[in-house]
């Protein structure tokens, strides 16, 4: 594989990164990453992008007030 990774190979790479494909299936893609700094940079920054969003999403929290309003509109305030 001399060209950069294309959509099909990137889907394989994603499946591997997501733990949904084993190394054998991804052998060609992983071998390419070894020798291609551009695709390696793409894979690294792709993973970093996902982890940044995951971390940032943990900061989104339902406030106590909003939770109370929710229970109240469901007429469950006595069980909140």
């Amino acid at each position, binding site marked *: 594989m001399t060209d950069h*990774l294309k959509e099909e190979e990137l*889907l394989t790479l994603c499946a591997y990164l997501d733990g949904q494909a084993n190394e054998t299936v991804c052998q060609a893609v992983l071998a390419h990453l070894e020798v291609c*700094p*551009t695709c390696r940079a793409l894979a690294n920054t792709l993973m970093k992008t996902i982890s940044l*969003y995951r971390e940032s999403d943990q900061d989104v929290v339902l406030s106590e007030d909003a939770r109370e*309003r*929710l*229970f109240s509109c469901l007429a469950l305030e006595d069980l*909140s």
Partner: protein
Amino acid sequence: MVMHQNKQENPPSIELLKSGDREAFARLVHLYSPMLYRLAYRMLGDAHEAEDVLQETFMNAFRHIVSFEGRSSLKTWLYRIATNQALMRLRKRKPPLVPVEEEWTMADGTTMTKELQDWCCLPEEEFMTREVQTQLERASAQLSTALNAVFTLRDLHGLSTRETAEILSISEPAVKTRLLRARLKLRELLSDYFSERVEERFGD
């Protein structure tokens, strides 16, 4: 902390919910409201609207639990209701939508022909700033609704490809393709900002 507790809790039984047991409903709300709020917030980008979606989701769920057939899990069912509520609101907004297909920048090789900056090597403190949060929000706001929904469900909520397909009524291959496109698009949008940081730190 609360979320960890919730993850360990079991959902109430469908029978109890169908019988109108208020405590079972309250448990359901306790268990799923934090994650459904995060979902709605991420899809709409607005705290008030996310709260409205949350309320509508549970009111809807209470109203229709009797006809819940259990073909999907309770969790997937609630996610489906919440996602649809959020999508309905998004449709009412002015649609600046880019067709999913047009967002693909890799297929013609345009973004791959140039050398990519590997900005993941930046020191951790570079990623912890308020400015980075703004960049993350700005980038995700540029995703189409279709891509954002898949990215949120799969990458942020950890739902499986099958669950995501079920929630959005699309095929599993479509989930995989949209997820890849969403990830690539976000990566590309963030790259402009982080590549500058790399230049500042390591450039001459």
